[in-house]
């Protein structure tokens, strides 16, 4: 999958590219409006991550021109501006999602994956990992073909893990993903711990391997040991 990252802050752009590459996404980065327009004219991308505030232009304009050419790429806006108006405008002109800086790279990752899943008509309505199979349309989870009853939050958590395989996820990013931005850091410590405990239990109770590993002090990693 190809992703174009349009972001003028080089450090950030490169971080995003690196991180997404870990997940097997092919990334290209541009740092200004002009280069972005060029790239878009020449190539097709599955997903475009756009910063609104570019030094020589406005991200909104890029999106508008993309939409005019009936482009089917997924569009995610990242912006330092958190005004309600901007968010509404972003969604109105056709972006699929809106993330406010600073955000967790893993969160961006999860959103891109989710967006890609939504756009893939036919095929991959399922995610498989080891003994785990997730049917996205019905939101059912199977381990060794046995259906597991997951709560809504446990399901979201599992998808978050599956979207960020072999990536260390901090507790705070997990907490914010599942409970929303307003959760305070104090709450996140305990609640994430107990959520993960429950999820682990459900996934492993009938012989499924455990893929959720704690990473010392920081968070968790989903993967094969």
């Amino acid at each position, binding site marked *: 999958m190809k992703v174009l990252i349009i972001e003028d*802050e080089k*450090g*950030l752009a490169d*971080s*995003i590219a*690196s*991180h997404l590459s*870990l997940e097997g996404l092919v990334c290209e980065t541009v740092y200004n409006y002009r280069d972005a327009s060029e790239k878009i004219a020449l190539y097709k991308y599955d997903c475009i991550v756009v910063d609104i505030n570019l030094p020589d232009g406005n991200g909104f304009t890029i999106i508008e021109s993309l939409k005019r050419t009936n482009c089917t790429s997924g569009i995610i806006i990242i912006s*330092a*501006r*958190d*005004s*309600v*108006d901007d968010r509404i405008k972003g969604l109105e002109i056709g972006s699929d999602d809106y993330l406010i*800086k*600073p*955000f*967790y*790279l*893993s969160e961006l990752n999860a959103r891109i994956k989710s967006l890609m899943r939504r756009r893939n008509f036919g095929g991959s309505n399922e995610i498989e990992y080891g003994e785990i199979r997730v049917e996205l349309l019905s939101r059912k989870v199977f381990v060794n073909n046995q259906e597991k009853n997951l709560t809504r*939050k446990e399901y979201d958590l599992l998808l978050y893990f599956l979207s960020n395989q072999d*990536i*260390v996820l*901090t507790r*705070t*990013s997990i907490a914010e993903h599942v*409970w*929303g*931005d*307003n*959760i*305070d*850091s*104090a*709450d996140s*410590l*305990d*609640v994430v711990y*107990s*959520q993960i405990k429950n999820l682990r239990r459900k996934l492993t109770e009938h012989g499924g391997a455990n893929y959720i590993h704690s*990473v*010392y*002090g*920081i*968070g968790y990693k989903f993967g094969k040991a």
Partner: protein
Amino acid sequence: MKLLQLTSRIFFLFSAVSYLTIGILFYYIIKRIVYTEVETRLQVEKKQFQEFITENHEWSESSYFIENKVLVEPAAHLQPGYEAFEDTMIYSSYDNKNIPYRQILFYTEIQNKPYHVRIHKSLIGSLEIIQAITIIMAVIFTILLVSIYFFYRKLSKRIWRPFNRTLASLAQLDLSGNKKLIFERSSIYEFDMLNRTLEQMYGKLHQDYSSLKEFTENASHEMQSPMAVMQARIEQLIQSSTLSDKQFEIIRDIHDSASRMTKIHRGLTLLARIDNGQYTETSKEINLTRLLLQRIRTYEELLDDKKLEVTFEVEDFFVWSLSPELAEIMLTNMVGNAIRHNIPEGKIIIKSDENRIVIANTGIPLEGLSEAMFERFKKGNRDSESLGLGLAIVKRIAEACGLLINYQQENGWHIFTITLR
């Protein structure tokens, strides 16, 4: 008390006092004048009497046809030069009642025998004059006072009108709005000065406020990029498998601090945006009770974890029109607060009726003023994890949306009440 009331009251009191004083004085003065007139006449008649005696060497009642006019009685001894005036009542057979008289008393010698003489003058006419004059003066004075009073009131209202207009304008001031403060020119120097000074002062205030706002917005905006880079790089760093445990610990601290900073920044930005009035356009009717219940359900794992028992007493829904985003933030913060500051196996009670919502939780008693709860960064227990912004945000949202939040501590319960302003 209004200015007009105060001055009217003073005017009234002063009028009443002076009215009475002048009235009484007036009465006595008139009386004195009239009496003096009567007494002068009596003295003339005394002279005439003495001349008569000197000429005729005798006195008889028949000399005067006016009843009781002159009364001559023998006296024990002569007191030459003695003269006195008295009020007296004498029965008159004409009118069948006692009539007031003024009499002059003196001694005289008739045929070498001392006599005590009294000459009378009727006071009726005089008294009537006194009464009439007094009444007329009273009426005139009253009319004068009353009309001055009304005139004064009218004038006052008129004169103070520009001032009242200034007051009204001031009451409508909104520093965050863009309206300039402009007053009409007044022909009265003092009011004009007042207006002009206010305009200037407000202009300066507004300017300062705007630059401060702009500065805050810029600073906050500028912070976001470096914070984003920091957060992203930390996230990348923790992916590395070559880090030692010690290094991980260090990175964890950096990450935690960066997260905290992000949260604080988010909170402060929110407060600034509310102050900016950015959420006023997006009001919708919201069932706050239902939203609150939803929020509680979101945190059910946390509640289970801490073994907190939640009871609901919902009589009716509390519905209000406000921005949905703000409503959610406010209630989430309150729920988070109730959970965070609770004791293990503690309780939370949610009450709701159409006029209010109550969120109460058990917890460690806090010292200090209840009001301090809502200040930024004030934390009750030195719980370093919580930001201390949550309640400040709650309060600010309430203020901006026409709600009132009240906090009380009672028997180990912390009670927050949301009502309409």
